[in-house]
């Protein structure tokens, strides 16, 4: 490619994909946003995804030994109410599906923290056929804690780092899921098969809330659109093969 060649510009994206620059905001807007970010950083409702061994480090972090409620971190029990998803250890291919379903049910701004080596590179399960090696290929991750297992002190430190990041308005990994949904969906489909889909319509959410980017739609979301035309009225030959994914239509 020579320097004189123009990079193709995508022009068919809707107007809402343009994100306002920080300078464009009015002063009131900036003050409001800073205040909201500060409140977000001081109030983290945590959903524990406790299928890994890291779950054992959370009770001392939450209860009287280290008491994370001092900085506003408190446990919640449903993804709808939670801000922060803690993936405590290794994920198998099967549990990753549940993580993605839970993650898509959470309301933005939402944050993900991966616990321990297993979420970073597979850890001690690196050569297993059934475990997921890198979590951030499938959902956007804000922070990792290295170690096998990280002590509560390390968990506290990552909470404090995440709070500083949220307060500065820099914890925006959740926007990446909207902006590059096609790539995430493609990697999920690599693992789960071509008929993988979730109940949440992420593309529609991205359009509604104005987070459409160049990577939001693509060849993989086209497969979802194709599947959306299927209904219970259509002839059974068009249904996807059963058994590969528990959410396939009967």
């Amino acid at each position, binding site marked *: 490619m020579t320097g004189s060649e123009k990079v193709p510009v995508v022009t068919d994206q809707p107007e809402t994909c343009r994100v306002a620059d920080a300078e464009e905001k009015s002063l009131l807007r900036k003050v409001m946003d800073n*205040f*909201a970010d500060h409140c977000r950083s001081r109030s983290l409702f945590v959903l524990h995804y406790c299928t890994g061994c890291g779950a054992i480090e959370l009770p001392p972090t939450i209860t*009287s030994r280290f008491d994370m*409620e*001092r900085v*506003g971190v*408190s446990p919640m029990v449903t993804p*709808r109410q939670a801000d922060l998803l803690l993936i405590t250890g290794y994920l198998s291919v099967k549990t990753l599906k549940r993580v993605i379903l839970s993650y898509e049910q959470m309301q933005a701004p939402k944050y993900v923290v991966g616990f321990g080596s297993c979420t970073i590179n597979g850890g001690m399960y690196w050569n297993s056929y059934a475990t997921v090696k890198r979590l951030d290929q499938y959902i956007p991750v804000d922070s990792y804690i290295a170690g096998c297992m990280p002590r509560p002190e390390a968990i506290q430190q990552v909470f404090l780092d995440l709070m500083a990041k949220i307060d500065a308005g820099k914890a925006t990994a959740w926007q990446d899921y909207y902006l590059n949904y096609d790539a995430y969906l493609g990697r999920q489909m690599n693992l789960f098969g071509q008929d993988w889909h979730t109940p949440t319509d992420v593309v529609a959410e991205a359009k509604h809330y104005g987070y459409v980017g160049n990577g939001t739609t693509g060849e993989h979301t086209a497969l979802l659109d194709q599947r959306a035309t299927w209904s219970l009225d259509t002839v059974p030959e068009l249904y996807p093969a059963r058994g590969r994914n528990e959410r396939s239509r009967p």
Partner: protein
Amino acid sequence: MLELFADLVLMPLIAFLFGLVLVLMARRVRAKIERRVGPPVLQPIYDIVKLYAKKTQISHGLMHDVSIMMLLGGFITAEIFLPVPGLDGLAAEGDLVTLVYIMMVPMLGLALGVGSCANPNGSIGISRALTSMLAYDVPFVVVIAGALIHYGSSNLIDVVRIQQEGGVSTWGVTTMPLLAFAGLIAMHGMLGKEPFELYIAPAEIATGPMVEMSGKYMGALFVMQCFQFYTVGVLYVTMFLGGGEMWLTFLPKVAAVIFISVAITNVFGRYKTEDVIRWMWRWPTAIGLVGLAFVMLKVN
């Protein structure tokens, strides 16, 4: 007219602000009992602002939105009918029976909203919530009836005036201690604290009616919790602890009533649904009926 308008604005506002203090107190007391430090002073505000500042939210249809209106509207209406020091609002027009009726509206609103969520945990939760309402309303109505007969008036302004003119010896808690005790248990059930926390049950049915509430809906529920603490506390103080002469004595009395509830809640487990009904219809109801008999003997 202008005064009434000021009352209508000020009474819910004070209820919300003092409700924040009560919520903070509840969380701090719980932390102290568990030997923790507990949340910072501004934590209830952080939580509510954060929930209202969520950038996406899920609505489950029109009834889901209307239910939030009923939740907050029910409690805001209840504040207007509760006389507090210097502010009477509509307390002269409505009475105790109206208030009891209005206090059921939020729970019914929640039931309508949860029904449209189609989440099985929510459905179980709300059926448990309405069942527990059935359980605590029986002793509560007995207590209300006793208080009405004792004071000879259902007007809350009269109830407060009678207690304030006679001093501590005419307070409901000294003239009808059994009813006051039964009322305290019914209030505890009304707050949905352990052991009557069957419809929240986070580890069992994932907070029940709140399971599908996200973002701004959850924020509205946090606001509702402030109103709920305040309303229940003020109603008890009005009926049994002499109501409010001045804010400096009135608010500590409200906080004390809520403190009793949040302090004992941490040492209990959770009753099953049928156990809650059995217990509520047996002990507080029996104590309330004995108290009611004493009141009727005294009146006659």
